[in-house]
């Protein structure tokens, strides 16, 4: 009896050991088990939202369970590490963003040097709005600059989620470029920033469109400029940073999908095809548009990888040029 049990166990173990090898051998069998999507932020917010929408649709398309796991920690360090060390078999996927997969690579090279991920596709971009307290006596960006220069507007403070986050870097660059002095105040998340901005504790902040829009529409905040490539349909009177001559200052945070570097190309392509179809689906686009998020899938995995590389180079230069120090030297 015991021997029989032992034999069964041995057979099962052998099968279990062979299973990954078998699935490796037949790439067309992918996916044949549960897929994990690792998200580097807590639940709520655009990164988590898009990951959950994609998970839901991937599950419908492929018939395999797709689980979203939130692993916040160290601006993506924990999630990046998890996916980096995972089996490169296409069953562990990261949905990262401009902060976790480009800016930290510039601000904290030590912690990110071993992270080797392959891009699958960009998913979304979240437009930003340079917002001011509703009572701030300015009508436009030009007016703001003039009044700050003349001293009519003194002691201007801008908020952000901390040093090294893109709203802070963008605001700093905006001030530097115009030769303006302003104080930076750091907050933890939108739950602290919004009340501070509404109460005029700070006067300026780059908010994402979803947070800022309802408050701008109700007159509690003023939208001075948007970071999108063209004027937002919801705010046709608010100019873009680009048309105001600020070029690349201002971030429309991108969120994209990554897998471990050694994931086989055919699986990456299969994943890309499925994700591209999901992002092109009108129903997905409506869900995203309802939250003021733009669907921006890449043309190919290669295009996304190139985009990420260019983003890292761009932020590395910005960090260096502005002497932004976050990681201990």
């Amino acid at each position, binding site marked *: 009896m015991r021997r029989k049990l032992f034999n069964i166990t041995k057979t099962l173990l052998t099968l279990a050991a062979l299973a990954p090898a078998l699935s490796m051998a037949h790439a067309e069998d992918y996916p044949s088990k549960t897929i994990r999507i690792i998200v580097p932020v807590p639940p709520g917010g655009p990164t988590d939202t898009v990951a959950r929408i994609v998970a839901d649709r991937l599950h419908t398309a492929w018939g395999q369970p797709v689980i979203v796991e939130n692993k916040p920690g160290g601006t993506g360090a*924990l999630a990046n590490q998890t996916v980096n060390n995972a089996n490169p078999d296409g069953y562990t996927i990261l949905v990262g963003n401009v902060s976790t997969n480009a800016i930290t690579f510039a601000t904290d090279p030590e912690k990110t040097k071993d992270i080797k991920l392959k891009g699958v596709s960009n998913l979304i971009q979240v437009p930003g709005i340079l917002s001011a307290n509703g009572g701030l006596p300015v009508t436009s960006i030009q007016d703001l600059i003039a009044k700050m220069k003349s001293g009519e507007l003194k002691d201007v403070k801008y908020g952000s989620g*901390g040093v090294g986050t893109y709203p802070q870097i963008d605001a700093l660059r905006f001030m530097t470029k115009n030769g303006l002095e302003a104080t930076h*105040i750091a907050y933890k998340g939108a*739950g602290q920033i919004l009340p501070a901005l509404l109460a005029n504790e700070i006067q300026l902040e780059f908010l994402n469109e979803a947070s800022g829009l309802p408050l701008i529409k109700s007159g*509690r905040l003023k939208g001075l400029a948007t970071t999108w490539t063209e004027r937002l349909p919801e705010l046709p009177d608010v100019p873009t940073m680009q048309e105001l001559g600020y070029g690349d200052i201002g971030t429309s945070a991108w969120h994209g999908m990554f897998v471990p570097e050694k994931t086989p190309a055919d699986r990456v392509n299969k994943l890309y095809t499925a994700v591209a179809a999901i992002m092109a689906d009108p129903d997905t686009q409506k869900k995203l548009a*309802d939250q003021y998020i733009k669907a921006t899938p890449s043309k190919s995995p290669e295009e996304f990888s190139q985009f990420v590389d260019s983003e890292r180079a761009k932020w590395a230069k910005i960090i260096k040029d502005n002497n932004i120090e976050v990681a201990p030297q």
Partner: protein
Amino acid sequence: MDILQQLAHGFGIALTMQNLGYCLLGSAIGTMVGVLPGISPVTTIAMLLPLTFQVPAVSALIMLSGIYYGAHHAGSTTAIMLNMPGEPSSVVVCMDGHPMAKQGRAGIALCVSAIGSFFAGCVGIIVITLFSPLLSEAGLLFGAPEYTALVAVALMTASVMSNGSALSTFGMAVLGLLLGTVGTDVGTGLERYTFGLPELAEGVDFVVVAVGLFAFAEVTQHINAPERRGALSVKFSELFPRLSDLKQAFPAIFRGTGIGAALGILPGTGPLVSAFVAYAVERQVAKDKSRFGKGAIEGVAAPESADNAAAMTHFIPMLGLGIPAGPAMAMMLGALMIQGIQPGPQLMANHADLFWGVVASMWIGNLMLLIFNLPMVGVWIKLLTTPYRFLYPGIILFCCIGVYSVRNSAFDVLMAAGFGLFGMVARQFNCSPAPLVLGLVLGPIFEENFRRSLTISKGDPMIFLEHPISAGLLALFAVFVVIAVLTGARTQKHKLAEESA
């Protein structure tokens, strides 16, 4: 009249078969999550969020809010019965709730907390109904200097938190403050005391510490103890509070409700801080302070009421202005946005159905919770007769699941085990964990706002006195210090007199 009409309209929405069902479901899940130690409403809401994609927005919010306030309602059960917070903010109820259970007064403690929760919940909803738009503005009166002063007053209460020696109380509070500094400093972006571990970059999570210090330490406490055999014989007639108990509890329920309702409105505080403050206030106003920590009924009634009142009024910044005050509220905002509903100042005007439907459902949910909780008292008492060898393995399992699910981190489970070990040692030396927890919660809020205030004022400390609210709170702080010094001197004199006699 207008409000009554609106509310009646809201009831029309909340009383549809479907929404009643979601309200019941939310309250039931909330109760379950509240009773199970370690599993917090935040993780539950995160897990159930995708399910709400398919249901109408009003039903989704009715269910999610039911989970939230339901968990706060039921969180005291395990705190009283097992000395483990069933939901993080019920740590405060442990302090007097569990001693009451040990004295065979568990039924009374459970009843009082159910009544207190219900009363506080109702008051909270009345506040939401009548003053939502007005009060969301009041929350904005609190900026960095005001929070600094408020937390200074609350931290002062750490000194009266436990019956231990002044030295051990102070030591545990300082340890809590130090633990609060672990993580990424929001002011500079630098990591502090993380030892290069990304697991520590977001700081030490409160759930991890609460589970370790309370649940795990409690379990280890019984390893050596002889197996208890259902010996706690409580007569049914003793399950329910007598008039004298209620007389003692009701003033505490009123005070706790008031404190909770007020502090819940501020986006920067919330149920947990409210519960701590309510407990401390109760101790301050009590004639005989030595009863606290040994089963004072006010020590259950006040924090439990404050917790529930704050859990209700915490919706105000979210519904009124679209401010995500805390992670649970952030997820509810997310749930609304996924449905294409823009939260913000216009929510009440543009989506009156949603607002009033949810508010009406809160009344129904609160009533359901009372019906769930009061008759269950007898069932929970039975729990005490379960031998530990059956009960505790299950509890440890749930705690591990709960801690793990906060951020899907096995590291956190190990860290909770470490805190369990520390808690075990601390108990041997009669060091109460409450001041540590308080320090951990309030320390970061204090530090952040203190530094933020000074950045705003460019280093001028007068900012704390120039803002009237913070000046008022600091005056209160000074009064507390004077009282503490005077009573301290008096007891000292007392002791000296006793010794010389």
